């Protein structure tokens, strides 16, 4: 029997009222694989991550982590029943999630944010949790900020603490939901550097991002989404050089064309506008 993928979603569908935000998506990520999810806003990228992490359980479809279905548990007699709250908590702790808006807990220090899960979920002693927490903060280059509250950290530092918080639980998969979209351009680099280091260590990651350069650099595979469906799922080098789908090509052209000389976006014709039109 081959090893099951680290995480797999099958037929993931998410409906909000009449709107279908996610339309029967199949995705599987192998252990140690780095997958970047690209696509225009509203294409269902973030919803996909929220379904995979079971933050919003999908309307239809199933998520398996290491072969175990999220939200279900198998009894000793072999029957599968909806998971107990405790079981679901355990299942969730196997998946780490990093959010666009960091979501650090402002009343806890950087270290407190990192150790909270170790103490509350893993039941570890405060002193042990502290040692591990400091290690995690050191791994993201923030050992000296252990006692700082989030409000006193820059956006980039906050996001690194959030990554350390997720890493501390030793998750089998890390999900990143546009981790740099809320950051000042100058602070994006430090967060991407941490993520690149994780990718090099073959951490299983799914990254929803608009950072095309990061995707090209760090991803093994690109999943390109539009309209709630996966349009293309291809190895990164192939996706960026010879995308198979017309829609992918257009996306790349628009986002990277300027850098690659693929095409020049048309400047709007303003010749009919006189300078005086700007004056009120």
């Amino acid at each position: 029997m081959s090893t099951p993928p680290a995480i797999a979603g099958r037929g993931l569908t998410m409906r909000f009222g009449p709107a279908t935000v996610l339309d029967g998506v199949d995705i599987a990520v192998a252990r140690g694989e780095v997958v970047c999810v690209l696509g225009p806003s509203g294409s269902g990228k973030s919803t996909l991550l929220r379904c995979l992490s079971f933050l919003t359980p999908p309307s239809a479809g199933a998520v398996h982590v290491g072969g175990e279905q999220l939200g279900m548990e198998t009894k000793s007699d072999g029957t599968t029943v909806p998971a107990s709250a405790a079981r679901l908590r355990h299942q969730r702790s196997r998946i780490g999630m990093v959010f666009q808006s960091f979501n650090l807990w402002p009343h806890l220090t950087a270290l407190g944010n990192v150790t909270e899960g170790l103490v509350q979920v893993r039941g570890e002693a405060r002193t042990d949790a502290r040692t591990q927490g400091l290690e995690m903060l050191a791994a993201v280059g923030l050992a000296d900020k252990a006692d700082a509250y989030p409000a006193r950290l820059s956006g980039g530092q906050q996001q690194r603490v959030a990554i350390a918080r997720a890493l501390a639980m030793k998750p089998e998969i890390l999900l990143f939901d546009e981790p740099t979209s809320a950051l000042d351009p100058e602070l994006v680099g430090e967060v991407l550097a941490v993520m690149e280091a994780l990718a090099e260590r073959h951490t299983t990651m799914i990254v929803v991002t608009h950072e095309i350069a990061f995707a090209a650099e760090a991803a093994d595979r690109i999943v390109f989404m539009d309209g709630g469906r996966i349009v293309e799922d291809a190895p990164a080098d192939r996706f960026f050089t010879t995308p198979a789908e017309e829609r992918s090509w257009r996306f790349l052209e628009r986002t990277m064309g300027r850098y690659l000389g693929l095409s020049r976006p048309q400047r709007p014709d303003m010749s009919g506008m006189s300078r005086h039109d700007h004056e009120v």
Partner: protein
Amino acid sequence: MFDVDILRESIPVIASAALVTIQLTVAAAAVSLTVGTLSAVLQVAGGRAGYWLSRAYVSLMRGTPLFVQLLVVFFALPLLGLRSQAFFAAVLAIGLNSGAYVTEILRAAILAVPRGQVEAAVTIGIGRLAVWRRIVLPQAAITSLPMLAAELTIVLKSTPLASVISVTEMTYAGVLIQARAFSAIEVFVPIAAGYILLAQVIARIARMLERRFEPLRG
């Protein structure tokens, strides 16, 4: 005009009655915070039944005068088979009354905790109860500190009403002295000063706590 002898004689009596006022305030505040917290959580996360239970409690307490509530609690306790002790009844009535306001203060603060923080806790696998205890309520408490301090001051200033069920707190002690000495100013001015002093203590403690939580703000 101003009889210093009456002042001198009444001060020790007022001081010992002030102790009752303090005990009453502290005990009622404890009831208020406990019931108010439970009621706020019930209203936000207790499902339909919890919501309506909490709403009914808040409407009942805010819709009737504390004066009436004191009488009802005092005279209802024996019906429940409990010996009616005036102090106990006063703690219960004032605490339950204030708890309705604490419910609303905390409810607002709970709703102000960004959803994403709860989601972050959920993805880590932190349980429902621990999310409330460790993430939501501490933040709600910090946010609502100024309002809670104001509510505590109101509790303090509600305690004279307990005299209606014969609790000899500071104001009632003054009434008793006045009935004997036939002079009011010498008695009630120091009593008013006593309330200001106690209110100041509450305000100071609140400000101290706020300063402690200063680094949490941006």
